[in-house]
């Protein structure tokens, strides 16, 4: 197999009718994954800030979890780009020679800024815990303990004062960062929307609404993922408690859990309504103004992509979970189903924008069909195929597991380390 001289995109693009010779689906699955992951990052952070900034007491525990999870999601969000770049060894260039007229150049700066904010906020929230760990581990034998001691020493950054005054300052700093972080998180995802919305050459992407639609659906996906992961973890803890300690302890967990979930659901629904409204608005405007591109856009949206857009995204991914979450007598099981559908719906939105925007030719006289590579037979079909996407999806969970060992975010009540 001549993997050296393969045109990028030729292996998963099938052209129909008249397509310009150089047109292929260049932005494939990893470019679908990237806004999806940054959306989760932004959404998780906003959820955390709802507690820190707006004092939503009912969200305290999920807020801590989603803050740390947001950190685990961040490197996972950079991974699709590394896998997509034809020259990944040059990935630092947007930080070295950023061409600020390009939306993508914002990537380096926004990512770094956002990462620093999240890391700093976590530091302020957990500093007392780090200091306590250093004191607890001092003098203990064993390599594992030595390692943990040094990690915690480094994490304290030498700030050992845990008097009430110092902790108050910490608390204030965390609140400020949580507040400052909201617009940065929105920018982190809004700029991704701007990347698409500003491409005048693409009839589907070109829209001033694109950044706002992306932000709204990002927050939806972030909240949904945090809620889902939180439920799964809490159910697992309750299950263990029921088996080992007592049924009462398990019921306590579940009671607190459902309060949190109820509050979070209200916010989820709000952002979901905003996201859907904007997307429907965009669709209506396109049909009404019927620009030159409308004929081919209509044949793509109402024709070959009808199932993807109206059945999978709008119905299964938006309408059904909306109804499920609003109907009285909502159970945890029903919530979980609704959250999974919401996450699927947001993924389909990214798919329909990225792949859908390349489903028609610039000539407006032909189509391109995307065939996601399933079984990889080369580095390229792995990176831009199903397994590449799954690797990206799995990464935040792996990272969270590692980070959580040093920054525990799942304890509750008196056990809570913050």
């Amino acid at each position, binding site marked *: 197999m001549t993997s050296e001289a393969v045109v990028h995109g030729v292996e998963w693009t099938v052209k129909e009718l008249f397509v310009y010779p150089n047109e292929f689906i260049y932005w494939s699955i990893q470019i679908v994954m990237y806004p999806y992951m940054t959306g989760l990052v932004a959404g998780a952070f906003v959820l955390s800030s709802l507690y820190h900034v707006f004092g939503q007491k009912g969200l305290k525990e999920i807020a801590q979890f989603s803050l740390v999870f947001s950190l685990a999601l961040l490197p996972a969000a950079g991974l699709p780009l590394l896998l997509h770049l034809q020259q990944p060894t040059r990935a630092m260039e947007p930080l070295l020679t950023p*061409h600020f007229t390009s939306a993508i150049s914002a990537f380096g700066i926004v990512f770094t800024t956002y990462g620093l904010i999240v890391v700093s906020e976590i530091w*302020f929230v957990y500093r007392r815990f780090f200091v306590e760990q250093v004191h607890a581990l001092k003098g203990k034998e064993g390599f594992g303990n030595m390692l943990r001691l040094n990690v915690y020493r480094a994490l304290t*950054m030498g700030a050992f004062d845990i008097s009430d005054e110092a902790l108050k300052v910490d608390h204030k700093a965390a609140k400020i960062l949580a507040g400052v972080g909201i617009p940065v998180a929105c920018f982190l995802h809004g700029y991704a929307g701007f990347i698409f919305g500003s491409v005048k050459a693409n009839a589907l992407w070109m829209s001033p609404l694109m950044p706002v639609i992306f932000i709204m659906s990002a927050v939806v996906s972030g909240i949904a993922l945090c809620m889902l992961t939180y439920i799964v973890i809490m159910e697992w803890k309750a299950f263990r408690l029921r088996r080992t300690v007592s049924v009462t302890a398990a019921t306590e967990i579940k009671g607190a859990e459902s309060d949190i979930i109820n509050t979070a659901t209200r916010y989820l629904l709000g952002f979901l309504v905003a996201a859907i409204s904007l997307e429907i608005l965009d669709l209506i405007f396109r049909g009404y103004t019927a620009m030159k591109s409308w004929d081919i856009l209509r044949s793509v949206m109402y024709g070959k992509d009808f199932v993807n857009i109206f059945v999978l995204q709008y119905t299964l991914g938006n309408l059904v979970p909306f109804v499920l979450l609003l109907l009285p007598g909502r159970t945890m099981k029903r919530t979980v189903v609704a959250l999974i559908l919401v996450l699927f719906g947001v993924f389909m939105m990214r798919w329909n924008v990225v792949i859908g925007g390349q489903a028609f030719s610039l000539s407006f006289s032909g189509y391109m069909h995307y065939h996601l590579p399933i079984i990889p037979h080369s580095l390229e079909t792995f990176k831009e195929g199903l397994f590449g996407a799954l690797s990206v999806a799995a990464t935040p969970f792996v990272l969270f597991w590692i980070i959580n060992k040093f920054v525990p975010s799942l304890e509750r009540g008196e056990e809570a380390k913050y």
Partner: protein
Amino acid sequence: MKWHVLRPLWLAIGLVVVILIARQFMVPDDFGVHGDSFTYNFYRQSNVQEWKEFPVKHLGHESCVECHEEKVTMLSASPHAAIECENCHGPAAGHPDEIEFLPIERSREHCLRCHEALEYPHNARSELPNIRNRTHKRRRECVTCHVPHDPREKPE
């Protein structure tokens, strides 16, 4: 004032400093705005010269005349005068020093590029002499009966 609160800020500034230092080593010195606008003229200056030095492959019939005067003269006087030698013989760069013989295009497909009758109305193509590939002397090379350097002549 609890100064420890500024530690993350020092970390951030440290990171920026590292990036700026890295810039000094990793970004070529002639990278910058070379022109009126940051939008359109932000680049590494020496790249322009690199493109100017890209090797030329097609040399034009002026370079063929030296050794192939007869053929070039014959061609220039014929209905095929406007066709460059390299259209049928490929790029001449490196010939004859590195490449002893240039390819000689004898296939039917090559001549059909212009001479297959597509019968398009008001099209310059229809003014060329043409044949229908399907029915005209199948399985024979055009050069069997036609001389490319002067299509008015018959081959010896």
